[in-house]
């Protein structure tokens, strides 16, 4: 099942070959699973030998001179130092990977390159000369194109205008030449193999289509430096390959490509050199060929990773949460599952498979069209988070900043928001009881905060997540739903969160965990439910869950004999 390193496989619908990374050199964890962050590009050559060709991957042109360099760049936001002496060097004609854990400072570095933030200290050198990129226009003028993880489009404007905003082709009278605009747009799409209508508005496009527009945008002005910040998170294999084709062609025409990704297979597939960052600092820059995934992971994490999943074995109790036939038209369909007390059930799947949407519907934030949710046997009224909370449900949402916390309110207000009625006496709240409760829970959760009255936005990501957990655990739930519980937090806190979840389950809480990190899913879950395109396609017990079984189900190939029943 595990492909041979150096093997090349050919995905179904493209003629492009993907080099299989050196999987064998990955150190497996104690449970025999891949460490943190490792994913495969789905590719059926993993299972059938006939499509395997032994063509070598295209040779990379020799990298040229240094186009863009960051020297000793530091940047702080309030009390939080995001970058501390970061370094980066991009050469013409190279694809350069920037890897690091969430929170390592990659995004801040990208924003400095994009001209969104100015560095507090340090220099940005373009062709060896210092430049000031104090706004996005300046960065663009310097030939730096940035593709963000989440597309930044104008929903009301047409696709073509989105691509050429500010650079529309003009006629003699400085008027926009619409015909030329559409023509150039079509030419770009042809190059990308996309069949989007240039005149339709960007509103309503899928994330993948939006990402394609971002790529077309970057392509349209012949960037010297193309920065791609986790562009593949929402893309399917074909779309990823399409993107890589573009990146390679840019590279071979002499541009520098900076690629940020958690998917090491992609990193090793595309990139010539890899820069590792940790805690806002530069760790190393080496040719990709000199590195193994294992080495990269060690450098990123800076410690042993095996201790990440301290799962305690628990004998599951009664069924606490029953979801039956839950359907939201166009989003997910016929989702049914049970969760027992003491059990950790993971919802796995690719981005966009509908996992978060399901748990949101269960919790009542979103409506659903059919189906039912029962907690401890009694039917839950739909569309009411308050009712869900009353029934003993708690949801730690996916997006901490938008959904989990009211960023501008204080730590204590956030921590007690879910318990505000319980804390009130005769409908009145006393600042003292709020503070006492908040202090109690932040202590229990070991939140590191200056003052409880500080805005929660001043905390680090990990501590913010602990506040969210405190906020929900203080409601004493029977069922805890956590959506991407460790996204964007540091390794130490991550382990703490995992230990906490494990302990909570051991104490009899039912836990539903949505996670995109396979190791986390495999390490923590008693059972893995895999979703694909809005449906639950597999229900795999801990003993049988491994990287392959989950990935196959997640990519819609569950029918294959890969998964033992």
């Amino acid at each position: 099942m595990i492909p041979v390193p150096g093997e090349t496989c050919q995905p179904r619908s493209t003629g492009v070959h993907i080099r299989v990374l050196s999987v064998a050199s990955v150190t497996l964890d104690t449970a025999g699973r891949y460490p943190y962050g490792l994913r495969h590009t789905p590719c059926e050559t993993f299972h059938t030998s006939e499509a395997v060709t032994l063509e070598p991957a295209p040779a990379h042109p020799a990298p040229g001179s240094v186009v863009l360099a960051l020297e000793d760049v530091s940047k702080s936001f309030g009390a939080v130092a995001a970058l501390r002496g970061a370094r980066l060097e991009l050469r013409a004609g190279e694809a350069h990977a920037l890897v690091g854990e969430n929170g390592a400072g990659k995004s801040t570095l990208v924003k400095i390159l994009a001209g969104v933030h100015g560095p507090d200290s340090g220099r940005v050198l373009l062709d060896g000369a210092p430049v000031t990129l104090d706004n996005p226009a300046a960065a663009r003028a310097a030939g730096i194109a940035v593709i963000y993880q989440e597309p930044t489009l104008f929903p009301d404007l047409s696709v073509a205008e989105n691509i050429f905003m500010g650079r529309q082709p003009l006629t003699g009278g400085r008027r926009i030449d619409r015909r030329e605009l559409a023509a150039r747009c079509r030419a770009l799409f042809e190059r990308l193999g996309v069949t989007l209508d240039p005149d339709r508005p960007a509103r309503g496009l899928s994330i993948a289509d939006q990402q394609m527009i971002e790529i077309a945008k970057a392509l349209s002005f012949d960037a010297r430096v193309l920065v791609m910040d986790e562009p593949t998170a929402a893309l399917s294999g074909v779309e990823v390959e399409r993107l890589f084709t573009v990146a390679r062609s840019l590279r071979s025409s002499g541009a520098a490509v900076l690629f940020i990704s958690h998917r090491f297979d992609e990193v090793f597939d595309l990139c010539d050199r890899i820069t590792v960052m940790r805690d806002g600092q530069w760790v190393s820059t080496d040719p990709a060929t000199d590195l193994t995934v294992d080495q990269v992971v060690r450098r990123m994490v800076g410690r042993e990773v095996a201790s990440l999943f301290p799962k305690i074995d628990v004998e599951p109790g009664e069924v606490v949460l029953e979801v039956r036939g839950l359907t939201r038209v166009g989003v997910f369909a016929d989702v049914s599952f049970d969760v027992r007390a003491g059990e950790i059930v993971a919802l796995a799947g690719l981005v966009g498979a509908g996992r978060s949407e399901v748990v949101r519907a269960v919790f009542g934030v979103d409506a659903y069209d059919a189906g039912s949710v029962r907690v401890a046997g009694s039917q839950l009224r739909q569309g009411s988070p308050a009712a869900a909370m009353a029934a003993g449900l708690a949801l730690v949402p996916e997006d901490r900043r938008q959904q989990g916390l009211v960023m501008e309110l204080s730590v204590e207000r956030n921590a007690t928001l879910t318990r505000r009625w319980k804390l009130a006496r005769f409908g009145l709240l006393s600042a003292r009881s709020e503070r006492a409760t908040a202090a109690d829970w932040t202590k229990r959760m070991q939140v590191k905060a200056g003052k409880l009255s500080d805005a929660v936005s001043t905390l680090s990501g990990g501590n913010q997540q602990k506040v969210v957990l405190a906020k929900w655990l203080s409601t004493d739930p029977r069922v805890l739903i956590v959506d991407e519980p460790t996204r964007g937090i540091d390794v130490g806190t991550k382990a703490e969160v995992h230990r906490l979840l494990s302990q909570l389950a051991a104490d009899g809480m039912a836990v539903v965990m949505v996670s995109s990190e396979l190791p986390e899913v495999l390490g923590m879950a008693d059972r893995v439910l895999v979703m694909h395109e809005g449906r639950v396609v597999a229900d795999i017990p801990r003993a049988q869950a491994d990287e392959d079984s989950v990935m196959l189900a997640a990519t819609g190939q569950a029918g294959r004999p890969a998964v033992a029943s």
Partner: protein
Amino acid sequence: MSSSTKAAAPAPVDVAPEHTGGRGAALVQRLVVVRELGILAALLLLIVATVIANPRFLSGQNLRDLLLSASILTVLAAGQTIVIVTRNVDLSVGSVLGLSAYASGTLLVNAPGTPVVLVILAGMAVGAACGLLNGAIVAIAKVPSLVVTLGTLYAFRGLDSLWASSSDRLQINAADLPTGFKSLAGARLLGVPLLFLIALAVVLLVGFYLRNYRSGRELYGIGSDPAAARLSGIPVGRRVLLAFVVNGALAGLAGVLYAARFQTLDATAGTGQELFVVAAAVVGGVAIFGGSGSVYGAALGALLLTTIGTSLPQLGLNPFWRDAAVGALILAAIALDRALSLRLARRLRGRNLRGA
């Protein structure tokens, strides 16, 4: 809960782009047309109803009066569209109009020989200065325009009356104004009032600019998603400032037109106009939160509001119904916009959803 694999048949993996081509643009186009045709239909319906009640409604004189009445509101609505498109609003236009009207009147009283073009330019300059102040506060201090222009609504009006009361002429009357200027009000070109032609020209120019120039498109971009606009390197502050200045200048122009048409100028000219201006734009399909809508729609909205004002009495309805009708129209318009955009979103989404 044992370990069986649920092999639901997933829909085939399909690549999104193939779905979305083709009819998206047509759909949008159709909805935009529906929106503007909607106003036009409402306008025609109103006119037909009024004509049935009073056939003289279609007389040349009345149509001319109607166009004349609509022209000032149309100019204001055109300017307001530019601002609203950027996700801002200018509530001070009524006061700016008053200030510019009084300024141009004063200019004409003191220098009766001033050519009309110069008066227009002067009025626009006064307006542009007001717009510059609004825009500068909004763009530089990053303060919500609603609050800023609420403040300048008071301040400009106060300035206007202070000026009027401290000068020796509280009110400038028709007799004080030179005949050349006054003849503007009655002037016609091919039977169409000149003031309306000016308004029409403004609408066409603004419409042309918003559609065909980079900075015009950037205004839409800013209103559509301000954060994305910054990331795209659009000079957001400068563009917003520009929008306010242009709007101010157009309010100034409206002030000169007001002076020419009403010929009685005091410190109260244009009081309360802001409501009708915003209403005209909203009724015309300009989204209050920016990013979409056309100046043509806003102009149609202005025409519709004006027609309501003149036809209600002729339909035998108490003119007091006018404000109520305007209010109801605004609500209907935003509700319609909402319904249309939901439908559009559903259709577009339905098209690139895979599976499930």
